[in-house]
């Protein structure tokens, strides 16, 4: 009983006194900055509407592997760092946390060279634009 009363009083103090004083005089972070402070170190960045559209495009990938057969840059990096352009929609685009693992590929490969691979994709995943967007997203995650 005593513990419950103590807990209720503490919560009441936080809600009625401490928090309003913090709002009035304390350093408060809200919205995007607060999100970045909390999650930025883990590589998570905000996902605006344009990003969601690109993620939906990447989500159309059916892992058929046809694009990899026309990926002239496969073999340019160690296989552990880059296993073909289909990796971009299948894995890299899933989460900005994954981007750090694709850094070597995104930094060194040329998105323009994915045009032929994109032209054969049955579900029209925009591989060139996706690679460019992932670079940009990686930059945002780094900053």
């Amino acid at each position: 009983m005593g513990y419950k009363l103590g807990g209720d009083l503490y919560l009441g103090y936080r809600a009625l006194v401490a928090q309003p004083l913090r709002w009035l005089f304390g350093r408060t972070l809200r919205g995007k900055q607060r999100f970045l402070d909390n999650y930025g170190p883990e590589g998570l960045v905000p996902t605006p509407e344009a990003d969601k559209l690109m993620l939906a495009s990447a989500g159309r990938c059916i892992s058929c592997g046809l694009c990899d057969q026309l990926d002239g840059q496969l073999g340019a990096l160690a296989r552990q760092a880059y296993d073909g352009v289909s990796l971009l929609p299948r894995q890299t685009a899933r989460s900005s946390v994954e981007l750090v693992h694709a850094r070597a590929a995104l930094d060194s490969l040329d998105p323009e060279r994915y045009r032929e691979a994109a032209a054969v994709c049955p579900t029209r995943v925009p591989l060139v634009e996706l690679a460019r967007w992932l670079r940009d997203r990686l930059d945002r995650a780094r900053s």
Partner: protein
Amino acid sequence: MIGVGVSKPIAVDVLVIGGGAAGAFAALAARERGATVAVVRRAWAATALSSGAADVAPDPLSNARTPLGGRMSVIESARHLASRRPDHPYAALQGRLALLPAALDFASRQTGGRLSFAGAERENHAFLSPMGLPKLSAGGLDSIVAGDLLGVSGTIGAVGFDLHPIVDARLLAAAANEAARRAGLPLRAVPIECDFLRRSGDSLLRPHEIAARIDDDPERLVESLRRALPIDRPQRLLLPPVLSRRDPRPVLEALEAGLGIPCAELLAAGESVPGVRLQQALEARLDEAGIELIHGEVYAASGAEGDATEPRPHTVGDSMIGIRMRGAAPPNGVVASDWPIEAGAVVLATGKFIGGGIRREGRLREPIFDLPVWIGDQVDEGSWLGDRTAYELRDPQPALRAGLRIDEELHPLLRDHRLLSPRLFACGDVLAGNDPAEDGAGIGLAIFTGYLAGLEAAAAAGLSLAGFVTAGESPSGERTPDSDEAEGR
């Protein structure tokens, strides 16, 4: 060859939408009749993913316990499928199945023998899958047909690369032996593991990379196999389907010359190198035949992408109008403006779910002409797809049979069984009633319906059809009483 971007309005006798096997053979059939033809396709699809076999119809008695079935001929099997499944395209085309041999001959001829068939009057071949199961099929790419299990007796060598998982030679040989025992085939498979892929990182190579490696140095594969062959030499070698990215014939010749043993490829599973080879061979043939392959997307001017006030695609004079096309991220990176299309006839060969010929947008729909999509004898109105699928993969999956219903002249039907246009035809996987996995009619169906659709389209465009059996005629060319009625529709 990815195709050119669209740069001007298109005016042709026959427009084919879709560049897989059905579209390619429709285009080639129309071209052979003298039509000017353009093929518009937005991407590769199911043909480029195929195993390298060309299924026409399965033997109805074939199953895991009796792999060779009742040994019915290919055309008998197709007739059986038509009689058993009234919603199947073969049922709609039952009166024209006599043209199946001509269609298969046509496909073989047009590909310069790259596609090879047993002949419609003969039984299916039996090919070995990478899992060691025999698969009955009328034909396929010549490098795979050379591995017909029915054409060999004694010992076959199941080849794998010792440090690469693409084919596990021991598992393959064990499974093949079990399948041969059930089928009563006088065969014994022995595993042969060669050391062709031994460099650091080779075990991670993708199939097309192995194919490129073999293209670069086929003699090294010959040497590797020579070291791996047992003293008691097999009568035939079945190799992983990665012998070349373009044409495996030179590699097969080098192997056979170097080893003195006939060699062939297994069927492909995922990431099919033979499928891409077939796609590229078809595109090369289109180019040779003077058919323009355009990279782009076709849409109806009255559809969701166009002006809603436009009437649906319709016929004016001798042409079908009301359709347009735009570049679909052409390979040169230049986004082209869109252009009107004027064609004497249009063949829809857009495939099913992978090709984009059927899409689910609330309901299943055909995205270009908004034709009704049938599942069984009903038009899909947006039903929950869970009701159209079965939990067990081996059970029939009605959703995979969704598509367009056609009449005997391959015109797609509207909901009330009228035609959208007498100048519009459909062929291949966009047709309703066929699930390639369950029904066993894959690229063979595409070849047959593509061939017929191409000839029908050429006829609709006003070109001569001498020697061609149209609906309403008997295979001998005599007119039947229905002919005039059919033409007057």
